[in-house]
């Protein structure tokens, strides 16, 4: 269950962060989008028992967070809030896969536990990277870069409309829900008929609003095509450097397992 106004505040907070200024904020949104997608693909491409080899990938979100001056605690909280789903699916692994895979001292760890940890680790990494991307770029810039990266225009246009009116309708629904809860004293959730009329009314108002917006657009010369000013600069050296640098790093992390090498080296040295 989600809290409507809390969620909207949360989203608008990410936009506030995205309005900040740092070298990372100033990068071309496309560069950040591409690197983040490459990052996610690299992270999820490991086999299910991988743990230590995933560690180096932590570098990417950590750099984004610290150099982009994103409050780390805020992101951590967000990640923990959404973690239950990954836990729910992964939690069966220890029950099913009980073969002991690793021994650390006297303790043995079954493959199930290892893969559960691996799932959680992947989850944290991918979520942190996606959130950091938004907090550094902002949703509208992500939309714009989707467009320049070849997503069809109708999709991107209605995506940005959706984002815009999410706040308007969210607040509207929140107000109606509050008005309802102020008059329902037992605090129970609404019944189905009530829900039908509640969201039905909201829907009718929404349709009227769509009509008014359409008129407002027509009044300013809308002809089926939503124009946009190109704010994006042409890719400059820093953007290219950012993309190439990270791609090389991800490649190294993926195929050369620096953490494993480091561990082997260290344990070897101690021995």
């Amino acid at each position: 269950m989600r809290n409507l106004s809390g969620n909207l505040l949360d989203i608008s907070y990410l936009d506030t962060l995205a309005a900040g200024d740092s070298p990372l904020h100033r990068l071309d949104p496309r560069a950040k989008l591409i690197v983040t997608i490459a990052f996610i693909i690299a992270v999820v491409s490991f086999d299910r028992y991988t743990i230590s080899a995933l560690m180096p990938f932590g570098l990417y979100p950590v750099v984004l967070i610290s150099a982009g001056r994103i409050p780390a605690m805020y992101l951590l909280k967000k990640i923990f809030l959404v973690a239950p789903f990954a836990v729910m699916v992964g939690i069966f692994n220890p029950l099913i896969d009980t073969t002991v895979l690793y021994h650390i001292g006297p303790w043995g760890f079954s493959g199930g536990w290892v893969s559960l940890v691996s799932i959680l680790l992947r989850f944290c990494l991918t979520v942190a990277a996606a959130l950091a991307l938004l907090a550094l770029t902002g949703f509208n810039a992500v939309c714009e870069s989707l467009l320049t990266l070849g997503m069809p225009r109708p999709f991107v246009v209605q995506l940005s409309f959706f984002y815009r009116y999410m706040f308007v309708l969210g607040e509207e629904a929140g107000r109606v829900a509050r008005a309802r809860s102020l008059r329902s004293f037992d605090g129970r959730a609404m019944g189905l008929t009530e829900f039908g009329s509640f969201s039905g009314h909201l829907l009718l108002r929404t349709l009227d609003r769509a009509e008014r917006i359409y008129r407002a657009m027509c009044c300013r010369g809308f002809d089926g095509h939503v124009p946009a000013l190109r704010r994006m600069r042409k890719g400059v050296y820093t953007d290219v450097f950012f993309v190439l640098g990270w791609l090389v790093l991800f490649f190294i992390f993926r195929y050369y397992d620096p953490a494993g090498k480091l561990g082997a080296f260290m344990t070897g040295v101690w021995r």
Partner: protein
Amino acid sequence: MSHHIVQALDIHYTYPDGTVGLAGVSFSISHGESVALVGENGAGKSTLLQHLNGCLLPESGSVRIGDSFLNPKNLASVRRAVGMVFQNPDDQLFMPTVFDDVAFGLLNLGFTEDDARRRVAEALETVGAGHLAGRPPYKLSIGEKRAVAIATVWAMSPDILVMDEPSASLDPRSRSRLIALLQTFKHTKIIATHDLDMAAQLCERTIVLHQGKVTADGQTVDVFRNEELLHLSSLEKPLGMQNCPVCTTAALLKSPRSHHPHGH
């Protein structure tokens, strides 16, 4: 369109659900006039405004803007001439940022990017919203939203400015800023409003609508003095024209309301 005339000739309009919106409305507004459109809730003000730029087309009767009668073929040029500020700025601000929103109309008109940028900046400065350019509309206060909504229309430099309830839900200072801004617009203005004080300040002429018909059309001062007419249309004399109880002891004793703000 040299003269910016707005003419309504016996407009009738009925909504699909059978509600009568307009039942024979006629008037003529000449260049540079500033006209208030008043009437009770549901009198047909918004419906009438929608007809002035072809958002709605009359069932019978016609609308003339400048030299031409409005028809589906000349909608584009009419909409270029008639700038419409909607009642709810959330309906009008649909683009991701304030800047994009003001640029929307300009780019549709075929302005080059540089021109569009310049005009956006000018329009935003005019309404005192230059600092809001990069902000998403949902992060603005209602007063800021309204200012930006006006800028979206202002930027296209319309010949005729049509506004629906521009002063609704504004705080007093934003309201007087709005009035000052509108006073600088020298072309034709048509303002639908319940804010009769603003109407008295801005408009020399007033049209009263009642149940889809024009019940009065004349000098603002004359219309607002006609108490019977105002009562019929669920209106009240603007505070500025009422005897102020604070100034007049006699009025204070007689008046059912002991206090209200000064309007003069």
